[in-house]
């Protein structure tokens, strides 16, 4: 490790090579070492039970960390959890963590939160690592140049017992995003546009590497949003080469290396770039300057369009399966072909999740809603991804901006992204959501989801219909530079009107 690789390789291949415990023989997969295993309450109980039945221990509790996130309520966190099955599942995690000696951040702890927010904020997610979790959005950690992917419960048990995973080889896909993002667009719009372009199966079998000028300019948090949704493009993992932005983010975090270790780490991290002469199995190119705020109209994340568009006419879709899927989605979503997306009225706006529940997302929303009132009849839920994010937001006064706006300010967790806790849509309710999946019933049985960026969510909460920030009245020139953490031109409402 740390030495220059003789063979040309992509970022993903380099991280893979540095983790091979044993090469597979005769068609068997390579056995890879896992540097960090993140655990939560939903996909772990059966894995711990498996260990117990086989009389096995956790091999490396010191490479394992657990938090409570999927089931946790976002209200009354100081009271016993009302739902008995949620309570049991969380209690089961607490018992397992105790029995197997695993660090757990429970509800009420300052480091509790969505597992994909907790790893990075503690500095546990670092470049060149292998990171796994029984959660498909583990791809988030790829933003640091880690090879990070979701696993099933059998694999959770496997990692607990052996700290390794047998993994079939993958192909590599370069996704290059050139140019600069236009004002009012964010990294969420980049990833929604990518998914619409390559489809929900386009990344299957690949590790994606996001690169290009637009990606390099993004903050770490914005990069996490992109890598987070690699799975919605069908890819188990998405990665971005570590650079100065990555190092600056990590420096000084509790688990980041210090002193001479820091220097050794940075020296190694700097080698984690795709070599000039390395080749990808597939390449996709996007121009950031072509992007607009993007929204989904259907029931899979690939069914998305620029906000200026209209609900498609299924009869114009040539491919039979896609046409049938569009027909079904339009019926489920209760939309009309040809209907402008901007005319769609929502009942709920959800701001949060491992996709867009970090501090920069909340700052961006606050900037839009400050001094405004939410639309009547729209319920606005703001759920920070972690307790730390919540504390930070409160220290900056963002919570007051949200509550003055008419939004509900909640405690940290996955919340309405998947509706395992009481935060759910009612049947027939429609949401603009900064989360990652618009599947039928994802946010509550019969609920309808439009995936949007935090900026679109905020503007939608103001107007009550799917909207961009450019659709709002702005009294003064507002500086949009820190929206999404990426450098954007100052907002000129006139210039934005065409967006």
């Amino acid at each position, binding site marked *: 490790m740390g030495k220059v690789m003789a063979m040309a390789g992509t970022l993903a291949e380099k991280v893979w090579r540095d983790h091979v415990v*044993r090469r597979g023989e005769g068609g068997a*997969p390579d*056995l890879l070492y896992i540097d960090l295993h993140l655990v939560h309450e939903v996909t772990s109980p059966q894995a711990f039970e498996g260990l117990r039945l086989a009389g096995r221990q956790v091999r490396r509790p010191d490479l394992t960390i657990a938090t409570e996130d999927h089931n946790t309520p976002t209200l009354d966190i100081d009271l016993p959890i009302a739902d008995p*099955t949620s309570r049991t599942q969380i209690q089961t995690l607490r018992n397992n963590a105790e029995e197997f000696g695993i660090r757990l951040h429970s509800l009420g702890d300052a480091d509790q939160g969505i597992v994909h927010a907790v790893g990075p904020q503690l500095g546990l997610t670092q470049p060149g690592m292998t990171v796994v979790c029984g959660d498909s959005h583990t791809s988030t950690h790829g933003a640091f140049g880690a090879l990070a992917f979701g696993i099933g419960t059998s694999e959770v048990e496997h990692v607990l017992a052996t700290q390794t995973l047998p993994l079939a080889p993958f192909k590599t896909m370069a996704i290059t995003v050139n140019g600069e993002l236009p004002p009012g667009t964010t990294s969420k719009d980049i990833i929604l546009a990518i998914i619409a372009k390559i489809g929900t199966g386009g990344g299957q079998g690949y590790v994606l590497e996001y690169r290009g000028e637009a990606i390099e300019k993004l903050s770490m948090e914005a990069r996490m949003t992109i890598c987070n949704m690699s799975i919605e493009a069908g890819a188990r993992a998405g990665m971005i080469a570590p650079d100065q932005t990555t190092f600056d983010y990590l420096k000084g975090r*509790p688990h980041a290396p210090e002193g001479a270790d820091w220097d050794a780490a940075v020296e190694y991290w700097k080698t984690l770039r795709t070599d000039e002469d390395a080749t990808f199995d597939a390449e996709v190119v996007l121009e950031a300057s072509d992007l607009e705020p993007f929204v989904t109209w259907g029931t899979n994340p690939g069914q998305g369009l620029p906000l200026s568009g209209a609900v498609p006419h299924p009869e114009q879709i040539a491919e039979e399966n896609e046409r049938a899927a569009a027909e*079904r989605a339009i019926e489920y979503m209760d939309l009309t072909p040809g209907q402008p997306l901007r005319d769609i009225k929502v009942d709920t706006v959800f701001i949060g999740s491992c996709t867009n529940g970090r501090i920069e997302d909340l700052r961006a929303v606050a900037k839009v809603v400050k001094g405004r009132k939410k639309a009547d009849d729209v319920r606005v839920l703001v759920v920070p991804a972690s307790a730390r994010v919540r504390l930070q937001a409160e220290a900056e006064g963002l919570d007051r901006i949200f509550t003055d706006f008419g939004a509900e300010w909640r405690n940290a967790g996955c919340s309405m992204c998947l509706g395992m806790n009481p935060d759910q849509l009612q049947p027939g309710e429609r949401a603009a959501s900064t989360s990652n999946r618009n*599947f039928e019933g994802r946010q509550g049985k019969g609920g309808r989801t439009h995936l949007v960026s935090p900026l679109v969510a905020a503007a939608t909460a103001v107007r009550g219909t799917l909207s961009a920030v450019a659709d709002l009245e702005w009294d003064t020139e507002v500086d949009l530079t820190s929206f999404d953490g990426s450098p954007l031109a100052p907002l000129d409402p006139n210039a934005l009107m065409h967006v």
Partner: protein
Amino acid sequence: MEKFTTHTGTGVPLRRSNIDTDQIIPAVYLKRVTRTGFEDALFAAWRSDPNFVLNNEAYKSGSVLVAGPDFGTGSSREHAVWALKDYGFKAVLSARFADIFRGNSGKQGLVAAELAQEDIELIWKALEAEPGLAVTVDLVNRTVTCGDIVATFQIDDYTRWRLMEGLDDIGLTLEHEADIESFEASRASWRPTTLPAKHLPTVPIEAARPVT
């Protein structure tokens, strides 16, 4: 894990693409801490529709699911595989599977057989023309037989071998414990550990409450 060589059972035509794991098993059913007993949760939202295929008597006892492309997308929940198995499915046929779902299937002895979409269409037609028709999934020869239709399918060699032998992955890996130990000895010392725990500054947490 039970050994799988060949299975014959009622085929169920599920003419939908992009069947995500939230449809296979909605999140509300994931709160259980057991590994079995998920049969009621399979396609829970769709089963309330009387026209759903599994509500048709002829298909009710199906054990071979024939689905559209991109089956098992979305969440990594292995509960999706458990629910299919608990219901009685032994194999799923599709033109394309999501990577994590395919991996989970292999660990649990559910055969995820990748067929050409044209063959899926032919099998759909046969199953709809004659509801209750049996489908044979032959893992040894990698073929699917349904009436007069004989199609080949793809599954990776290693998964096929493990399914046919009924092997437990953890046991296989632990045979190489010496390799794991020597790898661990070579890891850079600055790699992070979760223990001893280091924290950001400690702050007391009070529950956020709705503003009245």
